[in-house]
């Protein structure tokens, strides 16, 4: 019973499988919809809103919305582009991002999105909020100044018996990412490596190894974010 669904993005006819979310359906049709908090293979949380698209005159997050037969989707429009820019700029000013010395530079989704959207200087004032780093666990240096609270780590990094290594503590402005101190003691190198990889920014750093990839060889040194999806099609 695998009936295909047909829909359009910015006028282009697309085909999707049933139950696919819009981000992945778009991808299969060679169209990139920017994402930040969404991580393929885990349940989307729809928290960052960078994947906003418009359908039937309504904004919706493409990572949490299932594609439906006959859907008419707007993705690459001035209005949406502007909205995404605002979100990216807000993320920059609410953290403390010093890209030149950040080891995630070149592999960072936030930075790559900023480049893609040609952001030079955010329109909002920096908050310069002081955030505490947490270096107490053996494998991970938690650089909260760069956390975008996307919860990718919370949702994807678990112990073998399915306990969460990471959690969000507090609410609203005071919320911050924490790493379970006890569990962290037994975190393996592989888990730490994956945690760093799954964090879209430079908040989760695997200790003792940095800047391994030379400038010029890092993911987004070579291509602009999203172009790999557009090229494959």
């Amino acid at each position, binding site marked *: 019973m695998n009936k295909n669904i047909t829909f359009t993005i910015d006028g282009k006819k697309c085909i999707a499988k049933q139950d696919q979310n819009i981000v992945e359906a778009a991808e299969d049709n060679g169209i990139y919809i920017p994402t930040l908090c969404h991580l393929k293979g885990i349940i989307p949380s729809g928290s960052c809103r960078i994947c906003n698209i418009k359908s039937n005159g309504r904004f919706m997050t493409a990572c949490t919305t299932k594609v439906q037969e006959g859907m008419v989707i707007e993705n690459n429009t001035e209005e949406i582009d502007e909205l995404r820019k605002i979100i990216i700029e807000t993320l920059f000013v609410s953290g403390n991002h010093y890209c030149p010395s950040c080891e995630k530079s070149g592999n960072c989704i936030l930075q790559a999105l900023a480049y893609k959207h040609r952001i030079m200087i955010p329109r909002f004032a920096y908050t310069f909020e002081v955030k505490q780093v947490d270096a107490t666990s053996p494998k991970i240096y938690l650089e909260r100044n760069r956390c975008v609270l996307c919860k990718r780590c919370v949702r994807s990094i678990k112990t073998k018996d399915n306990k969460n290594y990471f959690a969000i503590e507090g609410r609203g402005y005071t919320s911050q990412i924490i790493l379970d101190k006890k569990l962290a003691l037994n975190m393996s190198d592989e888990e730490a490596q994956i945690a760093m990889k799954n964090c879209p920014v430079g908040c989760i750093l695997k200790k003792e*190894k940095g800047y391994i990839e030379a400038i010029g060889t890092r993911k987004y040194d070579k291509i602009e974010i999203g172009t790999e999806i557009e090229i494959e099609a």
Partner: protein
Amino acid sequence: MSKKITIDPVTRVEGHGKVTIYLDEDNNVKESRLHIVEFRGFERFIQGRPYWEAPVLVQRLCGICPVSHHLAAAKAIDVIVGAGTGDGLTPTADKMRRLMHYGQIFQSHVLHFFHLASPDLLFGLDAVPEIRNIIGIAKENKHLAVMGIMMRKYGQEIIKATSGKKIHGTGAIPGGINKHLTITERDSFLNGKEGQNIDQMIAWSIEALDFLKEYHKNNKSFIDTFASFPSNHLSIVRDDGAMDLYHGKIRAVDTNGKVVINGIDYQNYTDIIVEGVKKWTYMKFPYLKDLGKEKGWYRVGPLARMNTCDFIPSELAQKEFEVFKHYTKGKPNNSTMHYHWARLIEVLHAAEMMKELLNDPDILTGELVIKGKKQYEGVGVIEAPRGTLFHHYKIDNNDQITMANLIVSTTNNNDPMNMAVNAAAKEMMNGQAQITEPMMNAVEVAIRAYDPCLSCATHALGQMPLELTLKDINNNIIDKKRT
């Protein structure tokens, strides 16, 4: 009545420079002080950062010599990751870092000589500021300007190929390096078109030396005596006494050439060097513990290195070194303006070293990183273009930096630069309590022989000019000029 002159911002010295000249009753120079507003922010700022970030982070304290900080920090962090104290890296890592360093020495010295110092020589001390720059040089001697620009570019490309970027790269990582050179890159450095190849660099280095030697011949007394004074000299040298700008042990000679410190592992630099303080500035004044505060201050940089090493391990530079040594009959050379001569010998040496390294297959393949047992403290020392550079870090159990101490070249040269400024001021004061254009230039020229780069010591970026203040015996300002 004693009077005071202050020269502020040295126009072609990067950083913030203020000079105060104190006069006595007869309007003779009594004392001169170079004030560099040293900002210890970086040492504070880096506390709490993960140690592997240090090489990338601290290089930002200077826009001119970031590679030196990058490498000195990396060497210190090598110790922390258990990769030995400077000679434990893989051949690939060691050679790639050396290539990066010689590229940096080359481009920085070229900038220093061609862009910043050669206008003083071509146009003289009383020339107007408008022509005393690289554009003025281009009008007067196009070939010289082109050489300067092309040589600098070559060095910058070497830095880019080894560190990832022309400034503020990431190449040196704890325990090694993060890349090889590609064959294409290597070949273009060896045989590149339009003057961008290593043999051309060597030829131009010799040409630059010939230019300086010719100038020297015609301006002997200025080059030999201007702002000169005896001093100790310090650098690292290789175990066999060879010049080695990347790694070695600490050696110091006194003004007669007697070796007063030798074979000291720089991990123990605090055993032999004290960072002295003076009331009128936050800048430190390092001196050799054994010789004491009054007699223990020393010079670093190209001139000092010529005085400390026994030979230069590359053929053409060694020949020039012999000429240089012969000039003072084997005795230490204490002429401030001979810094430029020594600098150009190092330019040639750096070019020769780059050629040797580029022809070494280890830079193309081989292990990049090595690590051992973690340590909690490490010191990294390198001969930066302007002299010995110390980086010292301590970390805690969480891998966070708890202490950083940097002694930059400018700080090492603090006493000598004050001496040089004083000597220059003395020469130019002729009983009149006022600041003249030649006097301002002379002070600048004296500082510039040592350092175009006060930025390093001040931890500020960008160019800031010089202000000169003249003060009388009662500390009253009687004249003040800025460039």
